[in-house]
């Protein structure tokens, strides 16, 4: 196998055949092709199978709490906007435990690439339903089938005006790598919903199941048309599943909204206690 500067040779505990391997390889390939070095990157995650990813790559890592990857990415971005920030979350991590943060992180349009490893199940905790599990699908916990409607992360992100929304298929690494590179080059919040087969707990949404249904959006597709993107994003299942860049919106990234911050590395600013003397002077009467 080809080696990469991002290999770290740690013991990997994903199941053989898991879709996460494809995502990891595509990430390394995209980083390499973009000429990034391990110290340029910070990989942030929550908790879950997907969220183990920072441990399997040679780069700066932040493996935080379940559901809290996005606030963590935000703090890191404020401290050092020079770092290329990549966030790896599961569907539960991003949309259930972290659902509130997902909504508000998109509103900030911070400059990150967020990969949802969408296996439509909770892998780490052994097969319970995720927010993306289809209605009626049986799981290890929802033994009679899921009773609540699924959430479509792509539709949600488009409706929130996320500045870059894409979908990729973990079974198609070259395509995924292209999407990743586009996302990494995007200034603002780039979301990629990755169809990720969980070979152990999701016997419905398999590599083959996706292969039979995905289609790349055509050349003529205009990702800047919000209404068209919204309706395209609603396609799912036997009607076909669109992959590619589904939506784009031009708007200022978070740091560009901080008119008062003149540095791209806030943590490196030298500060002294005497800096506050003018404030003390204001408190004299």
């Amino acid at each position, binding site marked *: 196998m080809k080696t990469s500067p991002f290999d770290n040779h*740690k013991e990997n505990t994903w199941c053989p055949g898991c879709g996460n391997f494809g995502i990891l390889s595509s990430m390394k390939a995209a980083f390499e092709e973009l000429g990034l*070095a*391990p*110290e340029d990157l*910070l990989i*942030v995650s929550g*908790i879950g199978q997907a969220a*183990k990813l*920072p*441990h399997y790559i*040679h*780069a*700066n*890592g*932040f*493996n*935080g*709490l379940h*559901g*809290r990857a*996005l*606030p*963590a*990415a*935000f*703090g*890191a971005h*404020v*401290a*050092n906007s*020079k*770092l290329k920030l990549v966030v790896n979350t599961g569907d539960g991590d991003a949309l259930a435990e972290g659902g*509130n*943060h997902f*909504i*508000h992180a998109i509103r900030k349009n911070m400059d990150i690439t967020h990969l949802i490893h969408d296996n439509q199940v909770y892998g780490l905790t052994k097969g319970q339903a995720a927010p993306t599990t289809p209605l009626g699908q049986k799981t290890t916990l929802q033994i009679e089938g899921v009773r609540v409607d699924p959430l479509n992360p792509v539709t949600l992100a488009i409706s929130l005006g996320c500045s870059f929304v894409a979908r990729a298929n973990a079974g198609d690494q070259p395509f995924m790598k292209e999407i990743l590179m586009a996302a990494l080059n995007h200034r603002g919040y780039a979301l990629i919903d990755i169809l990720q087969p969980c070979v152990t707990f999701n016997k419905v949404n398999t590599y083959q199941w996706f292969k039979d249904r995905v289609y790349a959006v055509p050349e003529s597709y205009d990702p800047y048309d919000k209404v068209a993107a919204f309706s395209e994003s609603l396609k799912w299942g036997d009607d076909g599943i669109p992959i590619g860049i589904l939506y784009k919106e031009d708007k200022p990234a978070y740091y560009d909204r*901080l008119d*008062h*911050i*003149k*540095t791209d*590395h*806030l*943590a*490196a*600013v030298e*500060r*002294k*206690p*005497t*800096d*506050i*003397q*003018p*404030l*003390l002077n204001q*408190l*004299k*009467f």
Partner: protein
Amino acid sequence: MRINILIGGSAGHGINTIDQFLTRLLTKKGFHFHSYKDYMSRIRGGTNFTHVTLSDQPVHCHDDALDVIVALTSEIIKEHYDRLTENGLIICDADVVLPEPCRHQVTRLNFKEILKETGNTKGYSMVALGAIVKAIGLEESTLNHLVDKRWTEAIIDANTKTARMAYEATHCVLISIPKTNEDHLVMSGNQAVALGALAAGVGFYSAYPMAPSTGVMSYLTQYETRYPLVVEQAEDEIAAINSIISAASNGLRSMTSTSGGGFSLMVEGLGFAAVAEVPVVMLDVQRPGPATGMATRTEQSDLNFVLDASQGEFPRIILSFNSIEDAFYKTFRAFNLSDKYRVPVILLSDQYLADSTSTVREPDLKALKIDLHLVKEVREDYRHHDLRTLVQDRVVPGMTSQIVMNDSHEHDENGSVTESASNRAAMNDRRMSKLNEIIKEIEEPRLIGDPEAKDILICWGSTAGVVAAAVDNLTGQGRSVGALIFGDLYPLPTKTLTKLIERGARLINVEGNYQGQLRQLISRELAYPIHHSILKYDGRQFSPGYILKAYEEMIQK
């Protein structure tokens, strides 16, 4: 010598404005003061008052007895008349009902008439100010200082004219008033925290609004440009704590503040910061709980909570503020302690202290030193959680070419997840042993009054000011009593305490909570039971008189 002035009316009467300008004028005249606001959790109506205590010495609490009551509504007289001293004065609006017979000097001003005459319809607070300035014996020229950046010349003229008219119309004056001539700063408890954080070089502040902590964020946000600083209103407290942990793990000094409800949401993050050994400073401005509790009232009931908050075992530092000045220094120090030991520092304030304003001696900023404890060059043998040492500088991403992993699992020395039994025990030892180092930098409680007295009052946080006033009072009566005032709470400093226990002092804990939570902590750390408590948990701060009364009753028994 202390003079107490209570100014009250309904929300919308401009009580805040009166307080703000009165305290400015007092500071200009060289007085020390302490001012606390008692307000209801509503925007209009209800009863609000501000209580200003002025002196030639620093003041850290209000007194029970009042020298002047300025009543804009009858309710204020009804509630506070009994507190007026024999020689006390009343200044009130035309329609305020006074007790019959009223044995005090009264100046009744027709606020509306005065305002009509000066054509200054919005100058309600100026009438009150003119009257107070006269009543406390300051010369008329004091009113020349009634100026504000936001006011036009015309407004200043109208306001000064209004205040002068009230000054002339006021004929009751206090006999004796202290004289002083010193320069001080004026700040609130929340401002002191914000300033301490800025002095420490805070670069990121994320919080979710919650009374009584919001003032810290409101103050900081004004200075985002100057420092440079990012102040972000988070979507919730969970986001706030997680984002500051991450910013701090990237080398930026970061802080969050909240009250008990928000702290409850931050609990998992607290443990994460500790296990990842990321330095964070968290402020809990206590209000009565549980749940929503009372938003604009005070209590000291979160000590047990912050002592044990979050699952598992880990080191933490807990510091409480004894005064507004202390809040500045403790906040500054919290950052250095947190960075040095890579542990979370929890600051305990409360509504009384946060919303009070007082004169503060100007800090000597040159004497303060920021110590970030960051690795600035590549270190080949660097281990992020080095088992060979307890205190180590840390690597943060992007400062050097060295990469680093911060992790919420149990991890090995390099931040990799591991379930190894020996590693787990070693890492736990490493983290918990930090407390043995930290204790060396923890400040012993301050012993005031008679150090050899049989009775020693024990307190912490903002109760310090009231207890000190009570001790002064008893000492003035020729009685022998002391007090042990805790600022640093955890790890608990025990040297002074142990000496007192050994010499058989009778310890009496004075706390704004039901359980006697410091008493419980002392019993937990020293296995020493304290049998006497003076407790208060009605949402209001102690007063010196309350403590004296409870103390007298206690020793009668």
